């Protein structure tokens, strides 16, 4: 254990420098990441370039892809939907960010909740509810038609996907943009005023360029999330997009159809490209300029007229953002809801159906997401420790590999697992590994590892090295220092990582939908998907959706509480920070 120090040179006297506990753990983690992330994805990419009959490398598959009108259309649609979602999400987020950072505004708390309400509901859960509210014969259009004599095609085809996605993902832009604006020190603006700039010119030349990196980071995230998403288009029955096409090819035509792999390659390439581009743009542009004790931009009071306007904008956006939740609630408690603004009556029937027929979904979700999240924090803690506190050669690569999962869409990981593990038979008659329920846990674990890892890294970075050195100088071995000092001090971060991983894994659909082989082994998200396929199933589906929202909502709330409690405790003990 003791061979791996922060500075390998200092500890070169220890007897077994190469076989330390940290090295063994590092190698194990590397093997896990290779087997369940790198190799499956590499294989998918490899197959995309493979001639299905002869087994030679070829570009033929890509040629076929771009020859097909359907695929060209899907490619265009995916791009169009992602770009438009960024535009609509910006239109929603911009006024909110501006109002909170530039004005003394009592509704700031309202805006903060606006920023997190959408995130507690996975977009595909709200999708069906949204079409009942905003569809051609949904509540809003029925009312519009009745009183004003026209309808607006909110949910027609791609519009529906754009609306649902932008309502769900705008918080990414809101959070990043607000943080960027808040991080601009007052003196940035004041020195410009001092030199003669004011008003719109000041905004254009100083404030806007300083906030740009934050905005782009959020926008890139929204773009890529929408580009990769499978659940929403699937539930809205929009199949001419890339992710649904990949899913349909693999599940419909078969595991050997090259088109699924070509699409996967395009999805991965786009993800990597936009992450790389946003990193490249961000490099050397850490514009956080706030000084110790200095606040962000100067805020001013609103006049009464401006206040009315601000509240109007915020309430309108709030209504829009709450509409999926509202629709879902109506659907879950309503009897029949068709061609009318509201359901005909209300009932608890759907919850009864769920609790009598579908408890396995709930049980499976808790088992899968719980195990995956537990594994995530174990891996996350180990990787964080190895990267930050040891001098293990190549340790950064553990971080890079684990984080690379961010750039792998769920569909692609699912396809990779199917391809790689369908031939591997498990012992004890459990059948092929690709259709074993355990593989769902592995997929969830890999998909959520980056979140848990970030939380653990942040927690470890906040622990002053001197706290561990003090323990060592008092005679604690490296292993007992980790056990008695480091991990207990990281508890808050680890718990927050667990809850975040759990809550997001509980509603993951894109990878699981490829890997679920039996309905009895399916988790909640898949159950919702199955129910929503038929009009009669919408009620119970929505009831399950409500349960999902509760799980994610409670999880998000808990992790916020844990993080806050941790921060307070840290602030109370000044010695804990470096």
């Amino acid at each position, binding site marked *: 254990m003791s061979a791996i120090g922060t500075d390998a040179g200092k500890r070169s006297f220890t007897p077994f420098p190469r076989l330390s506990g940290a090295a063994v753990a590092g190698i194990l983690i590397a093997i896990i990441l290779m087997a369940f992330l790198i190799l499956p994805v590499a294989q998918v990419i490899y197959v995309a370039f493979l001639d299905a009959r002869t087994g030679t490398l070829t570009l033929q598959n890509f040629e076929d892809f771009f020859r097909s009108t359907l695929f060209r259309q899907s490619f265009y649609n995916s791009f169009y939907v992602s770009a438009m979602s960024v535009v609509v999400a910006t239109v929603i987020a911009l006024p909110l960010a501006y109002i909170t950072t530039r004005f003394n505004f009592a509704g700031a708390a309202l805006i903060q909740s606006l920023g997190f309400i959408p995130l507690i509901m996975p977009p595909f859960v709200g999708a069906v509810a949204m079409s009942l509210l905003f569809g051609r014969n949904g509540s809003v259009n029925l009312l519009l038609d009745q009183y004003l004599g026209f309808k607006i095609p909110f949910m027609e085809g791609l519009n529906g996907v754009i609306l649902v996605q932008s309502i769900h993902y705008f918080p990414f832009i809101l959070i990043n943009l607000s943080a960027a604006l808040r991080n601009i*020190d007052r*003196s*940035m603006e*004041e*020195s*410009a*005023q*001092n*030199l*003669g*700039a*004011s008003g719109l*010119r000041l905004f254009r*030349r*100083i404030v806007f*360029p*300083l906030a*740009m990196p934050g905005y782009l980071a959020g926008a890139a995230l929204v773009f890529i999330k929408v580009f990769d998403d499978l659940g929403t288009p699937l539930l809205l029955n929009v199949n001419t997009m890339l992710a649904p096409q990949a899913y349909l090819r693999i599940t419909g035509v078969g595991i050997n159809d090259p088109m699924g792999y070509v699409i996967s390659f395009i999805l991965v390439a786009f993800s990597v490209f936009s992450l790389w581009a946003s990193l490249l743009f961000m490099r*050397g*542009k*850490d*514009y956080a*300029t706030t*000084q110790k004790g*200095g606040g962000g931009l100067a805020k001013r009071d609103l006049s009464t007229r401006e206040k009315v306007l601000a509240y109007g904008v915020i309430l309108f956006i709030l209504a829009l953002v709450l509409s999926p939740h509202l629709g879902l609630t109506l659907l879950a408690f309503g009897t029949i809801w068709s061609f009318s603004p509201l359901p005909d009556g209300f009932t608890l029937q759907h919850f009864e159906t769920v609790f009598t027929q579908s408890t396995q979904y709930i049980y499976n979700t808790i088992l899968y997401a719980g195990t995956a999240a537990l594994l995530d924090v174990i891996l996350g803690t180990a990787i964080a420790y190895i990267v930050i506190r040891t001098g293990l050669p190549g340790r950064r690569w553990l971080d890079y590999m684990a984080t690379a999962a961010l750039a792998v869409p769920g569909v692609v990981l699912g396809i990779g697992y199917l391809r790689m593990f369908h031939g591997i038979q498990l012992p004890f008659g459990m059948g092929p590994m690709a259709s074993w329920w355990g593989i769902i846990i592995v997929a969830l674990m890999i998909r959520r590892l980056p979140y848990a890892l970030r939380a653990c890294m942040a927690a470890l970075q906040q622990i002053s090295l001197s706290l561990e050195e003090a323990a060592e100088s008092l005679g604690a071995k490296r292993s007992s220092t980790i056990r008695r000092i480091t991990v207990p001090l990281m508890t808050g971060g680890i718990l927050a990582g667990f809850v975040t991983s759990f809550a997001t894994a509980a509603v993951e659909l894109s990878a699981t939908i490829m890997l679920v082989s039996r309905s009895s082994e399916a988790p909640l998200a898949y159950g919702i998907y199955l129910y929503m396929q038929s009009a009669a199933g919408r009620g119970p589906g929505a009831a399950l959706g409500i349960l999902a929202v509760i799980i994610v909502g409670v999880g998000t709330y808990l992790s916020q509480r844990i993080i806050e409690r941790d921060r307070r405790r840290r602030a109370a003990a000044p010695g804990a920070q470096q």
Partner: protein
Amino acid sequence: MTRQTAGIRIEDVHLSFGPTKVLEGIDMEIRPGEFFAFLGPSGSGKSTLLRAIAGFGPRPRGRILIGERDVLDLPPWKRDVGMVFQSYALWPHMNVRANVAFGLEERRLPRREIGPKVQAALELVGLAELADRMPSQLSGGQQQRVALARTIAVEPRVLLLDEPLSNLDAALRVQMRRELLALQRKLQLTTIFVTHDQEEANTTSDRMAVLDGGVIQQIGTPQELYDRPANGFVAGFLGTANILKGRIENGAFRTASGHLLHIGAPVAGAQRIVLRPQNISLTDAEEGADIIPGTVRHREFLGSQIRYLVETADGTIIVDTLHATGGTPREPGSAVGLRVDSTNAPLLV
């Protein structure tokens, strides 16, 4: 850099943040071309006053005149004062040249005039060759110079410096303050320098104002303030001071414990005397004129000097003695006599 520099007149300025009074009845006049310092501890209101001159923060009551014009109702961008921020506030998305050109562009100067002016300002601070760097690629001292160049490029009528040296290391601080002073003399620019460091204020300023609790304690040249402090705060804030209680008696000062000290001109009703540590010496005699007996409690070796803390009936007195190489210092615990040279010692009411 030829514009007419202006004086500043501050008349009865008051400012409160809610119930807290941060500036109370500030009155002062700063002459054209003067290097003036605001000196005070943190929370004394010195930065608030500077920001009020520049037009930042809430509008105070009273009048602030730059030249002949009351600027209190002008927005910052119309005041024509140049301010160098404590954090430098260089815009990280612009290179050095763009930062310096900014103010000139805002003044709608023709492009062909901006280039040479930027060049001249950068040459003045000795950074002409770094014009294409980004602020993040500069050292702290270089950033400071860019901030200065950016401000003087627009030829303001008044230059305001908010703790400009506080982010630099000790050696650089000494060098920068000399350069600042040289630059100010060259440009003949009215300058206000805010600092909490008495040495900085002493070494640079023509005159200074000492502030505490939002109130001006005293205004004068550094030497005036040191030699003739108006009150205990100024005496203690500028240099080290032993302040002994007592009363005037027959043209001399009798300390509370009864020792008699010679003084210059007596001040009516004076109850305290300010004794600087270097005006007291140690002697073996324990009685006599101008001698206070005591016991050495603590000794600090400062190199050129040795500082003793001596316990006396009038309280603990700090004594600085010159250290000559090879001299033998007094040991803690030993009895000594303090010979006080109080002929020019300030008396406080």
